[in-house]
């Protein structure tokens, strides 16, 4: 029993960290740009494929990580510059439809470019062994992912709360016109934030590849779970995204192991419950 809890707990934490990388980008994008990016799962899968191709060429996991993040960030930056930027003044639904359109296009382009096979990337050689802690044996790659996730959370939190750039971002979240009026280049800030978010998603795609693999349809799967995380954590909140990733990641992992029939029922139920609790006693426009 203890072993079961330890292993599933670890898996849950690993999954949570991947979710956090995704949710961080999505939440940041929403907080700043007020755009719910439904193509976010596409960037995750795109990063995985970019990284896989880089890995096949170089046999280096670190190069693959770089290409995954930079590639997804570049595509994201271009998308923001060429299309999304013209939609900031439009209604929320327009943006949802636009990004959903891109999600569908990305999905089929990836089918064309990389085919329908299931792929994987092995973990880097330095982290291919296992580590024994107490009586349990853990794959060291998974432990690495947990460290990366927590480090990224702390770094982002510090960057947003304590640095000048972070202050600028927080200011833009609450009033982007005013920040623009003060002479800052908000347009560039938005592009950079969007590219950062999609780059993180791409990085998550590659980091997850040794564990969950790379296959078509994964983009919409992770999109849905990430949306749940972001809604539970509160759109635009980084700390919220972190704790919600842990909640959803761990409960889905244990749910799948204990009640495979009901795991997704549980996370959708959690989201519905959170939304309802948050909305209780308020008018529907006031829910944040």
């Amino acid at each position, binding site marked *: 029993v203890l072993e079961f809890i330890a292993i599933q707990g670890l898996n849950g934490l690993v999954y949570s960290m991947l979710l956090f990388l995704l949710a961080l980008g999505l939440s940041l994008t929403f907080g700043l740009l007020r755009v719910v990016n439904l193509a976010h799962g596409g960037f995750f899968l795109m990063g995985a494929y970019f990284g896989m191709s880089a890995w096949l060429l170089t046999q280096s996991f670190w190069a693959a990580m770089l290409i995954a993040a930079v590639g997804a960030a570049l595509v994201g930056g271009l998308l923001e510059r060429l299309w999304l930027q013209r939609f900031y003044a439009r209604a929320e639904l327009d943006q949802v439809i636009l990004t959903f359109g891109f999600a569908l296009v990305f999905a*089929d382009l990836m089918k064309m470019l990389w085919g329908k096979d299931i792929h994987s990337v092995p973990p880097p050689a330095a982290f291919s062994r296992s580590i024994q802690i107490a009586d349990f044996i853990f794959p060291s790659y998974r432990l690495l992912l947990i460290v990366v996730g927590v480090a990224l959370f702390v770094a982002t939190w510090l960057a947003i709360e304590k640095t000048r750039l972070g202050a600028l971002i927080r200011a833009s979240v609450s009033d982007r016109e005013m920040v623009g009026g003060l002479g800052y280049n908000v347009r560039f800030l938005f592009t950079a934030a969007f590219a950062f978010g999609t780059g993180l998603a791409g990085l998550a795609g590659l980091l997850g590849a040794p564990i969950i693999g790379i296959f078509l349809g994964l983009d919409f799967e992770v999109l849905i779970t990430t949306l749940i995380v972001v809604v539970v954590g509160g759109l635009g909140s980084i700390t919220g995204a972190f704790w919600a990733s842990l909640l959803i990641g761990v409960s889905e992992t244990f749910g799948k192991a204990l009640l495979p029939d009901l795991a997704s029922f549980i996370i959708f139920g959690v989201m519905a419950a959170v939304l309802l609790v948050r909305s209780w006693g308020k008018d*529907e426009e006031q829910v944040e």
Partner: protein
Amino acid sequence: MSMAEAAIELQPPNTIRGVWAALAVAAVALALGPLAGMPNFVQALVIEILIFSILALSLDILLGHTGLVSFGHAAFFGVAAYGLGIAAGRMTPELMVTVPVGLAAAVLLAIPLGWLSIRLSGFYFLMITFAFAQMVYVVAFRWKWLTGGSDGLLIPSATFLGLPALRSRETLYYTTLAAFLLSCIGMISILRTQFGRALAGIRENTLRMRALGYNVRRYKLIAFVIAAGFGGIAGVLNSQFNLFIAPESVHWTQSALVLVMVLIGGSGYFLGPIIGATIVILLQHWLSSYTEYWGLVLGLLFIALISGAREGIAGIGRQLWSRLGGRQ
């Protein structure tokens, strides 16, 4: 900016006479079709288009006429078919029993889900309807002894007053056409009453409606249940068309497809969802025999529509009409 505001630009034009005329022409043409030797596969195509037109129209009661973006509408479509199928399989295939059971299933599900969902608006409303629909999907997928699980459920051929019913393509064709026309008349009538005007008011300005003393939530809930009921009619028809129901019909991709139909056709225009359903079904049949990249086409269509023609095809038609000197 909330999604409800998205619909503000979509003032349904006062062209109700044009809608009636278009429906009447289409009805006569479609009614004459089989007599004029319409091939069997075209009849099947028309049946499918009419079923999905009802479904898209019912979604547009929420989307275009009330300003609520539901992402779980397929739940009611599917639950009605499941209700009918289970009643037909376990009790009797008598339509006098199974059809009310199917419709009741959709409506009874819509009351609690709607009551909870309308506490939210905008993106959160979209997410909670999505969550509920996916929960319905999980039930349909996993509750094997009731729903047949992933294998789906075969629906026995129907009887009406004890006699075999809806067994030929023609009878199903005319039944679907009649149900479509009655549903159109029903929905137009509802939207033109005081109640329908109030829904438009909520879409345009919820706060003002509340300040005027309208019980906004009650209106939204009734709209939600009505939409689910008409969605149920589409589901009941679809169960007779396929004589089969599987969890895919309540999956989120099905909900997304209906949303696509409404948006492509033009939300808030009565003919919009019908045009959208026709285009999507035709594209699906035509393209799927040429390409597996159906999503790519759909995605590009989305991007083009949202970048160029915000009001869908009905909106383009209307602009052309007024540019050609037609009346507003």
